[in-house]
């Protein structure tokens, strides 16, 4: 793990895990996804509100480690304003970002530091499931 990513992990992941701006139940959601990791008990509910083909709002509830929480928070933010179709390449990129077998450098995949921080998961195969918990659920939808 290069030092920059290490630093990003330490800063961005912790910040995003504590960010409450996208937490909470969305009453009029059009899609509700359940993300659960039986191995560690992390559990999130992801609420998505689709208006036309754009997501007007997304939020989540639940508990888990900093990595899964941050990745769910970042995902919620990323969802807003995009169509499900637009999310597809983003989800794929995210999986590539955390894939330790990837031959693409994290920096060549994105320059969004919120996302880039998760490249640290390449070093922690066991934490990869934390990073992709909610993204994996979304993948089934897009």
């Amino acid at each position: 793990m290069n030092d920059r990513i290490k630093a990003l992990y330490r800063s961005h992941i912790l910040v995003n895990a504590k960010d409450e701006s996208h937490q909470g139940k969305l009453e009029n959601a059009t899609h509700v996804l359940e993300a659960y990791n039986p191995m560690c008990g992390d559990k999130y509910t992801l609420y998505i509100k689709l208006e036309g083909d754009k997501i007007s709002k997304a939020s989540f509830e639940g508990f888990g480690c900093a990595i899964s929480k941050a990745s769910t928070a970042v995902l919620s933010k990323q969802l807003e304003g995009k169509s499900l179709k637009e999310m597809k390449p983003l989800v794929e990129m995210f999986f590539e970002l955390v894939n330790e077998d990837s031959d693409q450098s994290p920096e060549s995949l994105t320059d969004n530091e919120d996302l880039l921080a998760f490249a640290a998961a390449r070093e922690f195969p066991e934490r990869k499931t934390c990073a992709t918990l909610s993204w994996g659920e979304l993948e089934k939808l897009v």
Partner: protein
Amino acid sequence: MINAEKLKLQFPIFNQKTPSGLDLTYLDNGATCHKPQSVIDAISDFYSKGYSTVGRASYWPSSETTVAFREVRKLVTEFINAPSEDEVVFNFGTTDGINKIANTFLRPRLSAGDEVITTEMEHHANLLPWQQLCIEKGAKLSILPILDTGDLDYESFETLLNDRVKFVALTAVSNALGVKNDLKRICAIARKKNIPVFIDAAQSVSHDEVDVQDIDCDFLVFSGHKIYGPTGVGVLYAKKKWLDAMMPLSYGGGIVKEVQLQESTFVDGVARHEGGTPNIAGVLGLGAAIRFVQSIGMHEIHSYLMDITDYAKTKLNEMDGIKVLGNPVHQAPTLSFVMDGVHPHDLSTFLNEKGICIRAGHHCAQPLMKKLKVPATTRMSLAIYNTKADIDKLIEVLKETQAFLS
């Protein structure tokens, strides 16, 4: 008195840095222990100098392997104080042993309406086989609860032990909390009603004397890899009357008197239960591991580990925002704790970054986690190569992490 720094020199893994250039501080011995050079050598010497199958061929090196294999059986027999070598079966691990006893011993003896007792602190390996068998048979799984200290609620045991109970299974030591159970007490009560008791000794065998006659259990299992030995090998002790009464634990070569196409007869003794090629290298490696433990002395190991466990418990209890879970009468060298406001997985990732191997999770004891009302804990578990310096390092990094994360 044990000189852990000196003992550590016998473990090649510690004679190197981690890939990040750190010293390895290994505190996940409850999961598996590292191997001394003598165990590694026993395995490679076997493969390099005298490899062969065991028991069935009359040539060198098989004759030599057969003798060496038998010597390990003798060694294990003494090690657990079994009445005879005819009660010590080699298999592939604790999980393997438990599943086999569930399949072969208990399945044909359990009917709808019967009961099986296990405890609230079991590792999934000593819960699921009994649970699923009870579901299959329409039997009831009774759960012996734990008290707030983590100790078993022994008083309840007599109440649970009614006439429908056919089997009792419990662990010697909780892998999650390090609670050490009073096995003699449980066995004595069950003995009065002639109910067989099964002991999962996976977590006690490396640091506590196992004496199956003193415990007076019917079955006891452990894994080689948790006592400085190889992976893929385990020991099953069972009273001879059960071994002789049971069908073979595994059908294969070496267990038969006469095989006909429609029926077969089986030999007696342990051979009956060791169908197929055993993990021969694993058994020989286990022999080296037990010799290693004996060269130090179980009594010395036990008091050394109790000493550093006490030290760790005191240090953890002194920290603000750290809570050690359970406070049993007898503590094994395993401690689970939680840090206020920090998820165990994040904590362990930070500790791992400093070369500290420590485990976060439910420790394959989900029902216990539910009882404790935590999703997971962080667990340290000690072995003879650990020192107070390891614990000091842990405490230091815990403090750093706390400052950083909360």
